[in-house]
């Protein structure tokens, strides 16, 4: 079939009936695989298309829209808005509210990331292995994750408020109350504590998963060489866990930079804004006050900071992982 087509095309286009035009155009690719390939790419489009469309419509376009709105003074209601250029971004860097929220968020993120990783790794080493008690404890450290940050926030505010459970206990013991939620410094410390309380369980689980990937033979070799428990941990376990550490640091850091619901329920940003996180500022202050343009600029900055920090952490960790290998 194909060779005869080829001779036909060679003999001149004018002799060809219209039906035979098709094979001539695709002389180099045989017709059958073409149809198969077309069907394949059609099915690819059909299978990837819906997911891609959803991501484009509800993630990519909104990011572009946020970027666009961040250069305007739109209030969310008016038909028109002015283009402000970079004004929102300039204002952002001079805004004392933003500075305060950035400080609060930084404290939560840095202290929380360090604490969750130290606790997560330490407890994972202690809880590694079989055993009923260990299994129960694993569940116990993880359960706050299924409760939801709003509920955790209300719960701890009921425990820590001036009329709450702990202060009642203190006054019953004739001790002075501790202003867990009403003093600026105590309030931030309380929020950090509850953030750690509700987060580190996931790190325990992830470090346990990492510990399981360390071959038993390595640990045995260390034991035979007479290494102490600490030496084994320092020289064998920790280097093997390097990739797990990276995952844990990035995950917790990214999560803690967006703390919102917990603060909303626990302190509502108070006292006097001293526990106002950046995410709280974006959603509760700027957005609800109709400062859509300004809130968009704030959220774009949050996105850039999170992306840059995640990339920096991964790059730094990769360098130290390489250093360990050498």
């Amino acid at each position, binding site marked *: 079939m194909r060779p005869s087509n080829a001779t036909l095309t060679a003999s001149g286009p004018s002799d060809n009936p219209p039906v035979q035009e098709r094979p001539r155009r695709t002389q180099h690719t045989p017709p059958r695989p073409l149809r198969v390939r077309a069907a394949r790419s059609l099915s690819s489009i059909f299978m990837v298309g819906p997911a891609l469309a959803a991501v484009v*419509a509800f993630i990519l376009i*909104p990011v572009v829209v946020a970027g666009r709105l961040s250069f305007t003074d739109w209030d969310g209601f008016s038909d028109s808005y002015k283009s402000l250029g970079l004004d929102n971004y300039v204002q952002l860097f001079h805004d004392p509210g933003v500075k305060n929220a950035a400080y609060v968020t930084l404290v939560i993120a840095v202290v929380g990331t360090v604490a969750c990783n130290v606790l997560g790794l330490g407890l994972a080493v202690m809880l590694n292995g079989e055993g009923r008690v260990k299994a129960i404890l694993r*569940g116990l450290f993880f*359960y706050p994750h*299924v409760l939801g940050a709003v*509920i955790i926030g209300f719960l701890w505010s009921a425990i820590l408020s001036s009329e709450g459970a702990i202060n009642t206990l203190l006054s019953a013991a004739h001790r002075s109350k501790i202003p867990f939620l009403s003093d600026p410094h105590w309030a931030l410390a309380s929020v950090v504590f509850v953030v750690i309380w509700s987060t580190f369980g996931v790190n325990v689980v992830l470090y346990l*998963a990492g510990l399981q990937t360390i071959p038993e033979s390595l640990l045995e070799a260390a034991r035979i060489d007479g290494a102490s428990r600490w030496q084994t941990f320092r020289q064998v376990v920790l280097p093997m866990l390097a990739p797990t550490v990276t*995952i844990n640091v990035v995950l917790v850091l990214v999560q803690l930079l*967006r703390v919102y619901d917990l603060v909303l329920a626990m302190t509502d940003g108070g006292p006097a804004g001293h526990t106002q996180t950046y995410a709280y500022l974006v959603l509760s202050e700027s957005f609800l006050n109709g400062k859509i343009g300004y809130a968009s600029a704030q959220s774009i900055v949050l996105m850039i900071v999170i992306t840059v920090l995640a990339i920096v952490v991964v790059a730094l960790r990769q360098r130290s992982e390489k250093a360990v290998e050498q």
Partner: protein
Amino acid sequence: MNRKAGSRVGSVMLGLFALVMLVPLYLVIVNAFKPESAIRQRPFSAAPGVLSTDHLRAALSSPDYNIIKAFGVTVMFVVLVNVLSLALAGPAAYVIARGTRRWHKGMLLVFLAGLFIPGQVLVIPVIYVLRFTGLMGTIPGFVLYEATLTLPLSMFLFVGYIKSIPRELDEAAQIDGAGRLRTFWQVIFPLMQPVVVTAIVLHTIGVWTDFVNPQIVLGPTSGLYTVMTGVYSAIGLHTTDLSVVYPTLLLAIAPVLIFFVIMQRKIVGGLTAGATKG
């Protein structure tokens, strides 16, 4: 000697940590059955004299917050989001995992970029996309948005997993005359069970505990609230009345905790599997 002392210190520390984890839970359970004055005077006591189910019943029939309805709505969202998420992510992950061309890689990057975009950045402009499509404040709009938010993680988990399934299986199915969509659902998808369980666990916790998106996307006008947004509006009004706070919290967490205790192995195990796959 040294080792023994070390492990004893370890046990004491573990015990203390366990206590810190348990005390809040204990307080919710005990104080949900006590009147305001008893909570204020002796919050840790569980003396049987003062215990009653009155406050629990009052919270159950609270006019501003129907907890049964909130649970129904939340479970419905969890199911719909998981089904839609699998239907969207599964076939797409299959094509991308099996693809060898550059656009397949590019497509994966587009999906994974979503992992770095925080919900707070999206929720403001998403409102305008939803208004534009007429889906704002509706169940389909919320489910579609929430399912889209699960896609970056699903794609991350699925693509890696499908790559570990031998291609020969696809070819055998295709020689038997199955199309690609059928090959995926009937041959590959059943083999993906472990990673699908992980995805469902993570998405379920995510949808269940989500507060910002239902609060803003569904909005107060829809009359729909989830456990999180419902508890927020119910307690937000009465933060100082502990005989409302504790029972409401107990009702909201009791079913989840029971579910968690039963499913603990699956939930923690799924997370572990997901972590090592990453």
